[in-house]
């Protein structure tokens, strides 16, 4: 397996050239983005339909997603950290996450947009920031929750080791909290960024009452192509998006996953470490590790040292009790501020809601029922095909080797990008949008179920499978006594995520600008989209509240119970 020295040198050369090109492109990118952001507001930005603009548009979208992701990560770390370290904050912050997670992206639109445009009235930056914040609202919550729950599950002896060896807060964070949470953060980041792509079309181009916001990017390109009914442009846009996503997956996520493996909390080296499916992956992964060793680790250590010394100095200058009073006072002030703000918001929201007629509410509830049917049909359909396929993939390593990469690739394509293509075919049929809406929900959420089922099937213990074989279980018995109970906890995990995702997807699935007109079908998602389109804030508020409460209620009443059942009765203990 030794590579000849010569080829290693040429590799290094190629990498050099690649690095140079990347740097050059990055400089240009910064310049282009700076010019666009700091330029004056373009009320009706023309979204070009020429395929040649696609690389630039892809860059715009990528930067938006990256900035939004960076913000999400920072916010999520802070949120999770506070929630996990303060018992008082935890009481409020954790249920709040649950609720925020169930609010669809578009419901944040008016508030975020109007605020940003008010702050930067003369710069494109306002609209850009608005779009970024919208993407942010779709990405941040699950990362925050993942970090919080990781922090809560740190083994107590590790915590005690950090305490007895007098780790400063920073060192604790850098050497215990963050590494322990890394794997969860990586997986959730991948999910969040995928969600960002999913809602990109909604986040780059939207109408808010009389105002029409458009930002050049892949999402708006696709959206414009769809509303013009320009098939060629749609296909170009989809191709560009897929290309970007595949590149991101191969260049960023795969190496990061391999790197994250070192943070697995296990005392023994596992033999079944996730095998990267591309051969040359090892090379790139080692780049990720090298970057970490050369850049991040020294930087972290330098920070640790300076923080420790800083803390020492601070401890010498301040007397401890004084600091305590100040901190407490700040805490109370903050809490009071939040309470006043909340009271104000609730008061106004209540007034807004009381303006709505009785009939409006009835209509919204009917829409909710329709969306409920749609979401659950999509979920059941998803489970029906993913369970057998997932079990087949999970229990045959040979099949898995071919099917898993394919499924991963398919899963990474945002369903919304494919949606216009699907609509092209279905729009002529009666009830075509009805089918298309469910198909979009299905496309957007089935992967969660599939991957969980695969993981469940892989985790089925061999001895149980052998027992089923020895006792000559019929295939029905095998499913009933072994497979279904075995994958149940995994299935529930997948369905929970899928259910939340499907509700959220309804806002793009039920209401769509297509071929110069609006195609829509009655449903709660379509109520939200049309309310935001027409600037009916009262309807938007009411429908958002209804959707959030339905999602939270379903989680509490159904999924959480199934979850408990899964973890008590169907847990495979070794």
């Amino acid at each position, binding site marked *: 397996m030794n590579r000849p020295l010569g080829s290693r040198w040429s590799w290094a050369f190629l990498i050099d050239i690649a690095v140079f090109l990347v740097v050059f492109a990055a400089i240009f990118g910064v310049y282009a983005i700076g010019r666009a952001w700091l330029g004056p507001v373009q009320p009706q930005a023309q979204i070009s339909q020429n395929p040649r603009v696609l690389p630039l548009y892809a860059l715009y979208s990528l930067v938006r997603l990256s900035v939004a992701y960076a913000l999400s990560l920072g916010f999520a770390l802070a949120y999770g950290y506070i929630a996990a370290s303060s018992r008082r904050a935890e009481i409020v912050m954790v249920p709040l996450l649950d609720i925020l997670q169930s609010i669809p992206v578009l419901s944040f639109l008016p508030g975020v947009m109007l605020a940003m445009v008010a702050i930067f009235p003369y710069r494109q930056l306002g609209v850009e920031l608005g779009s970024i914040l919208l993407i942010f609202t779709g990405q941040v919550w699950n990362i925050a929750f993942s970090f919080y729950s990781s922090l809560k599950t740190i083994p107590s*002896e590790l915590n*005690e080791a950090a305490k007895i*060896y007098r780790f400063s807060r920073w060192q604790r964070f850098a*050497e215990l909290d963050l590494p322990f949470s890394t794997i969860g953060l990586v997986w959730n980041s991948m999910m969040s960024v995928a969600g960002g792509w999913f809602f990109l079309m909604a986040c780059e181009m939207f109408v808010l009452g009389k105002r029409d916001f458009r930002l050049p990017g892949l999402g708006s390109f696709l959206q414009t192509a769809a509303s013009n009914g320009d098939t060629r442009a749609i296909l170009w846009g989809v191709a560009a998006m897929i290309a970007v996503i595949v590149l991101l997956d191969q260049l960023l996520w795969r190496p990061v996953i391999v790197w994250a493996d070192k943070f697995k909390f296990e005392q023994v080296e596992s033999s079944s470490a996730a095998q990267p499916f591309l051969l040359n992956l090892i090379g790139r992964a080692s780049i990720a590790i090298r970057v970490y060793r050369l850049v991040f680790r020294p930087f972290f250590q330098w920070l640790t040292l300076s923080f420790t010394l800083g803390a020492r100095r601070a401890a010498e200058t301040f007397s401890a009790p004084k600091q305590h009073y100040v901190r407490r006072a700040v805490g109370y002030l903050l809490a009071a501020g939040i309470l006043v703000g909340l009271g104000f918001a609730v008061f106004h929201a209540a007034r807004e809601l009381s303006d709505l007629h009785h009939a409006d509410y009835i209509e919204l509830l009917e829409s909710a029922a329709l969306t409920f049917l749609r979401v659950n049909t999509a979920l059941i359909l998803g489970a029906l095909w993913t369970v057998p396929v997932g079990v087949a993939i999970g229990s045959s390593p040979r099949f898995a080797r071919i099917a898993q990469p394919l499924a991963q690739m398919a899963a990474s394509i945002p369903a919304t990008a494919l949606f216009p293509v699907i609509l092209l075919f279905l729009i002529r049929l009666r009830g075509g949008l009805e089918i298309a809406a469910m198909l979009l929900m299905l496309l957007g959420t089935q992967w969660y179920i599939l991957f969980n089922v695969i993981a469940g099937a892989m985790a089925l213990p061999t001895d149980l499978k052998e027992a089923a074989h020895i006792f000559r279980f019929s295939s029905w018995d095998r499913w009933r006594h072994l497979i279904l109970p075995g994958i149940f906890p995994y299935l529930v995990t997948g369905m929970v995520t899928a259910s939340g995702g499907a509700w959220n997807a309804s806002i793009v699935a039920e209401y769509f600008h297509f071929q110069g007109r609006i195609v829509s079908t009655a449903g709660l998602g379509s109520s939200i989209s049309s309310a935001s389109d027409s600037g009916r804030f009262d309807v938007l508020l009411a429908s958002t509240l209804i959707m959030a409460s339905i999602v939270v209620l379903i989680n509490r009443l159904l999924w959480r119970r199934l979850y408990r059942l899964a973890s008590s009765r169907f847990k495979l203990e070794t």
Partner: protein
Amino acid sequence: MATANTAPAPIIEARKLEKFYPQPDGSRIQVISATDLAVYPGQIIALLGPSGCGKSTLLRMLTGLSPASAGMVYWHGQPATNESPNVSIVFQSFALFPWLTVLENVEAPLEARGMPPIERHKRALRIIDAVGLDGFESAYPKELSGGMKQRVGVARALVVEPEVLFMDEPFSALDVLTAETLRGELLELWLGHKIPTRAIFIVTHNIEEAVVLADRIIVLGRNPAHIHADFTVDIPHPRDHKSPHFIELVDSIYRVLTRPEHRDETAPPRTFGPGRPVAAKTLMLPHTRPGGMAGLLEILADQGGRSNLHHLADELSLEVDALLPTVDTAVLLGMLRLEEGDAVITPVGQAFAQADIQARKAIFRKAALASVPLLRQMEQALKAKANRTLPDEFFRDLLDEQFSEEESQRQLETAIQWGRYAEIFDYDAAIGKLTLTET
């Protein structure tokens, strides 16, 4: 209690140290009763006791990891309040950071003290060398065997040159041979004065380990934890496991550990007749399965009905920790008697050992209902219900009044095990319901 025959002043002194959890109703769950304890320089002290008796909690209070509910810890005569003294802990589960290499793990405590990189590097390498990890500096913990991992744990603890080294069951996660090797290496470092540490405080449930290592052995009793006995060990190193002096000491510790403690608040449970109100404190069940007790009684019956506990543990290759609760159970049910470190089978125990499975259940049922007030209570409560069914929460709430949440859960689990074996009631775990078994 403190053996003040060693002249110098103690490094650590605990005065009236207590741990309890106040309950909403004003009562408290006492985990550790007021305890005086002193650590003198030049000593290895072993804290010995059955599992769950509060050894680790006591260690955590002495190191400042866990606040005391009452009482005070003094360091060199000064109250140890905010500033944590210079101590280290070697943990049972190693508690290494899996994402850091061996070297980084050992350097981390120095980093926390703000030591510049070059110096901490040097110090870490020196100690890594001393514990025999040379060549493993850049390995990750998961690449190492258990023994190597604990060597890293020891190196990390020693690198800060602690005044007192605390060890929380440091060798109990290792296999017998590895544990023996590591004990030897620890003694070598200590006796050869290769480390600046002035005292070692080791928590263990392994009697032989304590006798091999320690200069002083403190035996803890249970419910709540208190100092039950304090031994001074003056056998010269290296200590021979087979020497009469050694065996004698091990035997006498066994005797102490199994000796029923006649303290005022704990009368033996069997004195309760039916109808008499049940005193809360006597309900604590040892956490064992009836099957384990059956095994013990069978072996005892085979050996003529009487055996030395030390030999019994050896023969079963069980540590006291595993053996004692089983012995306690048998004693509680009246199937075993303890006489000066010997276990003696009673006629009931003899009958139990020789019976078949159905007869055993009948004997167990009779004994359990006679001696375990909790099971009797449960049976009566179930009989009182028309449908003979009660949720497990009902009993958990009852137990919660006397035990911590965790302990009452374990108590209930044990009671359910026994009750099921005795066929007093049936339990459906999925819905959490107990149903009286119809006879």
